[in-house]
């Protein structure tokens, strides 16, 4: 197999985020705006990096195994609701509240996984049922009023650049450790690449699936808490109103997959999230209407997918032209 030198791999890995930054800076220059004008811009950027990175990990952990999960938003909402309510009642600080959100979300993920392995219903269907169930739980838990922590300055004070970097770094490190350097991760990769053979060689698929759902849930617990601390409240959603959060993860996931050819896939996902966060920051700095944001994001996703799914044909054409010219 042809091996690429390390420097080339690094340059290729950074190609997309750097290209995105350059294009956005050029547009910003044309508009007379600075992308990173003040502390708020940096905060918005790092919050987006944290949210998108964690959501993309949560989605891709199960999606790589063919398990689509519509319940990510509902897990985030319910765990933030429970943690926020307890923080209000017990008067606990931000870090214990974060720990509760993570624990509750991991438990919710485990329950979801439990229903899946016990019933053997296709995962996408189970996730629809669980999304509805968890949305209903959150609504019933608060009587539809949601949670408000606007008076809790300690929890709102969690929203700092330092905390966003810390949370993202710890999550990425733990995910890399778990999926690349443990037996659980090796089993996970074996099941992803060949389910039948992996099971026949004695890998415990049920345990691995339950673990994946728990980890995915825990990540959404962090996302839920970040949102709770940022806005000081948690709104309720019914009838699949919570699934929107998942759609932000598609583009970084595909970008991460492409970058993953050159470096660790998990780091690739983070770089994909950085690219997405830069785009989110640009939308905010350019005062882009939400409808235009949705259209641009969707077009970027489609264009990137068109490239990914026709890469061979596009590159062959490009190389053929080059060879003809030479």
């Amino acid at each position, binding site marked *: 197999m042809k091996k690429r030198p390390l420097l080339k791999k690094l340059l290729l890995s950074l190609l997309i985020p750097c290209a995105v930054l350059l294009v956005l800076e050029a547009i910003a220059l044309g508009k007379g705006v600075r992308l990173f004008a003040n502390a708020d811009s940096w905060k918005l950027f790092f919050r987006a990096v944290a949210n998108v990175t964690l959501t993309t990990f949560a989605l891709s952990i199960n999606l790589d195994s063919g398990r689509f999960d519509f319940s990510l938003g509902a897990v985030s909402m319910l765990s933030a609701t429970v943690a926020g309510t307890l923080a209000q009642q017990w008067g606990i600080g931000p870090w214990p509240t974060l720990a509760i959100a993570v624990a509750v979300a991991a438990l919710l993920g485990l329950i979801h996984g439990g229903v899946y392995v016990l019933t053997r219903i296709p995962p996408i*269907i189970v996730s629809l049922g669980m999304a509805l169930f968890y949305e209903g739980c959150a609504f019933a838990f608060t009587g539809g009023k949601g949670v408000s922590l606007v008076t809790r300055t300690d929890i709102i004070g969690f929203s700092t650049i330092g905390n966003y970097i810390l949370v993202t770094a710890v999550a990425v490190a733990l995910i890399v450790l778990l999926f690349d350097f443990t037996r659980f991760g090796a089993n996970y990769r074996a099941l992803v690449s060949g389910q039948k053979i992996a099971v026949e060689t004695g890998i415990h698929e049920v345990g691995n699936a339950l673990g994946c759902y728990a980890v995915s849930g825990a990540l959404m617990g962090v996302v839920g808490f970040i949102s709770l601390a940022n806005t000081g409240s948690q709104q309720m959603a*019914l009838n699949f109103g919570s699934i929107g959060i998942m759609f932000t993860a598609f583009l970084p996931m595909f970008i991460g997959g492409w970058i993953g050819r050159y470096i660790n896939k998990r780091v690739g996902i983070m770089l994909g999230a950085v690219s997405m966060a830069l785009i989110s920051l640009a939308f905010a700095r350019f005062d882009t209407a939400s409808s235009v944001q949705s259209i641009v994001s969707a077009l970027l996703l489609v264009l990137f997918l068109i490239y990914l799914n026709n890469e061979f044909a596009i590159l062959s054409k490009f190389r053929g032209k080059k060879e003809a010219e030479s």
Partner: protein
Amino acid sequence: MGKQTIRERIPAFASILGLLVLIAAYYIVGAIRDANVAYGLKAVVNQSVVVALVATGAVFIYTLGSFDISLGAATGVSALLGAMAYNATGSLAVMFLVCVGVAVAIGFINSSLASVFNLPIFVTTVAMMSVLSAFMLILIGWNGAGDTIKVKARDVRPLDNIPFKVAILAAYIALCWFVFTLLPTGREAKFIGGNPVCARLSGINEKKLAVIASLISAVGIGLGAFLTIVYAPTLNKDTASSIGMDVIIAIVFGGMPVSGGPRSRILSAVVGAFSMGFLSQIMSMLNLGSGYGQMIKAAIFLLVVFIALGSQRGKLLTR
């Protein structure tokens, strides 16, 4: 092949049995609560008919093993443009044609994009959903009449009756049943859903079928959009927003495998849509709060799917 036992037969009829049980439960709860059952029945039909129309067409897409999450947004855009066309012309016929035409155009773009560029249809429809939802906001903004686009209720009132809606649903089901059961299109779609490699090797044109499926489904979306205006002539950005997910639930509730293939049935969508309608009405009669109602709905949904799966569970976890 040996005779099937009753236990083996139950899964095949689980969805229909589920609907019958729900109808019985509806009348029992109505009698206990002394509720206006006839009025409730009207509400069930009004709620279910749009989902049933969109879901019936979507059966073609799901049979292929594809998945479309943009159906709700497509219905919303078709309805908004239909309403705008009516306000411009005052003609119900134009409104009808615009609803169906816009839906067909969206379906064509969706399927062509996926077919020409080899895109995974699910992600294409995710992107399409974002674009269409944003387009709804833009349309409402263009219209310049606040947050809504309205058609005068008295203009559509003559059409807002159960026989008219049921007739449209019946005609569309008949059309879909004919195409799905009696024409090669249905058989080929089931073949692709069941075994895409084998179907391809047998010479079946997957891309052509994907376009046909999207166009048939689009007609259902257009009809659904038309009836949405008739039932609720004040449209906003949330119009039909939940239909995309309701359709998935209805199809699965109706006993069709979400992976498509030979077990796909046209009637699944109708059975599922009406089951959901009755379930919602029962929750409403029991005065269950929105949260508890949704929890029970989710539990019943999973239970029905679990029973419908029957003995198809393998050693490996389903993916």
